[in-house]
């Protein structure tokens, strides 16, 4: 009897709350549901409120309103503001959605304030953070943000001659006689392999070399076998490898086996796979000023410089970390959220687990690129 009464009360309360929410919705709920004409502005009567309101407008893609709310909008056009947020060329930013905004005050006086706004963007390959130091100024009884527009550098119009090699492949066809040879798959070799036990499971990492004279599309699959020979788990590298390897190029790789402890593992079967593919030696990406930053906040930072004449839409930096004996201790990667324009350096930062940072004495990085209309 009591149970029925309780169930009835819960039902009535639910209906009442749904009715209240429908009849008198809060502004942010209307806005995030795609309704309403106005974005749910935070109060611009405080510096933090003004920055939060700007973040909300960006999140809602109400970029015209966000632009209109800026204090320094006369210094740049709305298009420049939009490109600053979404990128000037097709890149990870183009299809990213703003997942969250974090605002942290640094300093405030009667007429201006300094704030940090961290924009956390979500993409198909993970999240990236865009931190902006904002100056906020008082204008009458309201506060407005001075937007620190990041001007993308562009090289002057010019012709850049490119004469790097390109490899094309003609495969055997169904009309060929029996026994007719096909093009040989590229010869690749694992030059290092190292399993490590981590809190979240086993990690297998190493390096793969294309020792052939032709380009290869590569992947590595690792299979963990228990001490009695039974299968524990089998995983591939997914994107933690540079898939296109030119002749004599080396790529690091890392494979995660969540939930497996190294003490369970009797042996590891490694299966490098290589396929002959059409490829180009262009674009050449230079890694400039690469620097290892020890803990706290251990990372590798530097800049990527696209030396070719074409825009690289997505770049992925893979870094290999070695100890003083030259043994691979970790492999980590980071995507670049902006397109790489010709000869225009772009910053990168590859994080390192804090507990491994003290063991690292050398770093090597490779860059894999994706350009519209070509394979990664």
């Amino acid at each position, binding site marked *: 009897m009591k149970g029925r009464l309780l169930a009835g009360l819960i039902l009535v309360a639910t209906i009442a709350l749904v009715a209240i929410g429908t009849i008198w919705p809060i502004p942010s709920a209307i806005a995030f549901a795609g309704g309403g004409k106005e974005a749910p502005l935070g109060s611009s009567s405080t510096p933090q409120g003004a920055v939060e309101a700007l973040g909300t407008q960006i999140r809602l893609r109400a970029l015209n309103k966000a632009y209109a709310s800026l204090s320094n909008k006369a210094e740049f056009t709305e298009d420049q503001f939009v490109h600053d947020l979404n990128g000037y060329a097709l890149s990870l930013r183009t299809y990213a959605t703003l997942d969250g905004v974090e605002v942290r005050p640094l300093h405030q006086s009667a007429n201006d304030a300094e704030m940090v706004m961290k924009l956390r963007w979500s993409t198909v390959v993970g999240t990236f953070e865009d931190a902006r130091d904002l100056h906020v100024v008082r204008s009458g009884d309201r506060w407005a943000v001075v937007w620190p527009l990041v001007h993308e550098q562009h090289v002057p119009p010019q012709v850049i001659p490119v*004469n790097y090699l390109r490899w094309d492949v003609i495969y055997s066809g169904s009309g060929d006689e029996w026994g007719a*040879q096909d093009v040989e798959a590229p010869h690749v070799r694992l030059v290092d392999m190292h399993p490590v036990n981590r809190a979240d499971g086993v990690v297998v990492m190493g390096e793969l070399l294309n020792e052939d004279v032709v380009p290869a599309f590569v992947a590595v699959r690792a299979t963990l076998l228990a001490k009695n020979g039974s299968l524990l788990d089998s995983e591939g590298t997914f994107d933690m490898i540079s898939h296109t390897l030119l*002749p004599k190029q*080396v790529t690091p790789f890392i494979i995660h086996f969540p939930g497996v402890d190294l003490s369970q593992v009797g042996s590891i079967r490694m299966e490098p796979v290589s396929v002959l593919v059409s490829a180009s030696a262009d674009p*050449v*990406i230079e890694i400039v000023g*690469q620097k290892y930053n020890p803990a706290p906040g251990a990372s590798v930072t530097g800049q990527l410089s696209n030396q070719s004449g074409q825009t690289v839409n997505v770049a992925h930096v893979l870094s290999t970390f070695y100890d003083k004996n030259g043994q691979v201790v970790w492999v980590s990667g980071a995507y670049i959220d902006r397109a790489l324009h010709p000869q225009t350096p772009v910053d990168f930062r590859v994080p390192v687990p804090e507990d491994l940072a003290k063991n690292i004495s050398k770093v*090597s990085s490779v860059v894999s690129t994706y350009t519209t209309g070509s394979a990664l």
Partner: protein
Amino acid sequence: MTLPRSVTAGSSFSIPTSGNGKAVLYIVGPGQALRRAVQLGGAASIAAGDLSSAGHYLAILTGESSSDTGEFDVTPVDSPESLGFLAKPSRLPVGLRNGISGTVYVFDAYHNLITKPLPASFELSVPSGTVQARTVTTRNGLAWTAMDSAPKEATAKFVARVGGASSARVIQEVPGDPCSISISAHPNGGRLAVETAPVRDCSGNAITDGTIVTFTENFNNTQSTVDVPLKKGIASVDMPANKGARISVASGVVAGNEIRWDGGR
């Protein structure tokens, strides 16, 4: 009926029968079956090309009141008509002993494997004129051999011949790993132009264009690296011109020399 002990694939022959009346002759073998209406007392004719698959056959003659069975063999034609030639690999480094294998399967005009021993000759030649030749007797229809890749880069022609039949394959003999890599540097505007000497393997072959050479500049705890493909045997790149920087080079697992840039003095 009187069956021959064996017949050659594709040849014509006849099977004499005895008795009276009508009968049907069935011939069943590997991959082939024939049916012939026969007047008993006469001979069943098998035309040229009717029985082409080599193997062991069963003949069944069924009449209105009696039946007879027998067996015979169809053997391949002795003269080879085509070859199945498997040459592996199609691409390998120079100077590899027994690195190339060739296996030949000998077939007659009806694609039967000729199991009779026959001399098979293999010939691996490069445009410079060097020829490696072997003759091997086929066994159970196949013969194989192994050849060395030449010390010099070339596109080799690998030919197998048995009787009047021949088959050719192309083998690319490509340079091996770089033997040594040496770099030099000179100022180029505000940058440093670094380039390799022509990169060669230990047999003196120029390393294939497109091979990646990695330049690394270490300066003041920072590093700049760039992967550059060889062009006309040389890799070159512009790097930051930092006085006191150490610049090294590597390709695959082969490391080259290291230079220290002292500002051009």
